[in-house]
């Protein structure tokens, strides 16, 4: 087990899509200030931003916890949304259940989960229909 250097916690609001990304933005700034290598900051930023957008689009918001340890960054995104019906489909590039209003804003291309997997070193999804989804992503330092 590693000692945590820092834990960041955010509440993701479901109400205002224009605010989606604030948690990712704050995490990015804090990691940069801590002197985390730019490539790691980039991977965390993109993976977390995609996840945060997903929480707003699909899950009525939720909670994000970012644990910074000496050798990895662990992101836990927990929501009490509808759950993911078919994870295999959701992981397919191009598959999307996002509504038209979200597509009009430039999202919903079906790249969210594939991109989160691409930019994290480990990703785990626990989902229960009508209970919620917890996505854990790890980026190694």
């Amino acid at each position, binding site marked *: 087990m590693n000692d945590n250097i820092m834990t960041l916690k955010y509440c993701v609001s479901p109400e205002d899509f*224009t605010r989606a990304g604030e948690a990712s933005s704050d995490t990015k700034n804090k990691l940069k200030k801590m002197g985390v290598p730019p490539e790691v900051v980039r991977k965390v930023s993109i993976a977390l*931003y*995609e996840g945060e*957008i997903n929480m707003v689009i699909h899950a009525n918001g939720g909670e994000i916890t970012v644990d910074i340890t000496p050798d990895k960054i662990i992101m836990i995104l927990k929501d009490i949304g509808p759950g993911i019906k078919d994870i295999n489909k959701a992981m397919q590039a191009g598959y999307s259940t996002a509504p038209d209003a979200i597509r009009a804003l430039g999202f919903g291309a079906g790249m969210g989960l594939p991109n989160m997997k691409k930019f994290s070193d480990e990703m785990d999804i626990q989902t229960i229909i009508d209970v919620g989804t917890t996505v854990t992503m790890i980026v190694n330092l």
Partner: protein
Amino acid sequence: MLLKEVKELLNASVLTGEDHLERQTHSACGADLLSDVLVHVNNQSLLLTGLCNPQVMRTAEMLDIICVVMVRGKIPDENTLELAKERDICVLATNYTMFTASGILYSAGLRGGTGA
């Protein structure tokens, strides 16, 4: 390519970030789908888009995009520009379409990054 060269080539106006025009972009991408932009990552790049909501600037921030060019004469709202200003992102506006603006920059030597 310097951002001031981009501005001149596209006959663009500067909506915010006048003091960033001496910065250099090494690559560019053009998209109205932010999800696609997030797949293609490059350092110090430029984004051409017709989207003008705040998420464009958030996406730019996550990818360290230094300049967003609004094509087809689009002008984003004040909140979006304020977000760009806070994040040190230069925002230009051109009347050219995405295709023409991209072609002009490509002809002048600017290229897409890896995978773009």
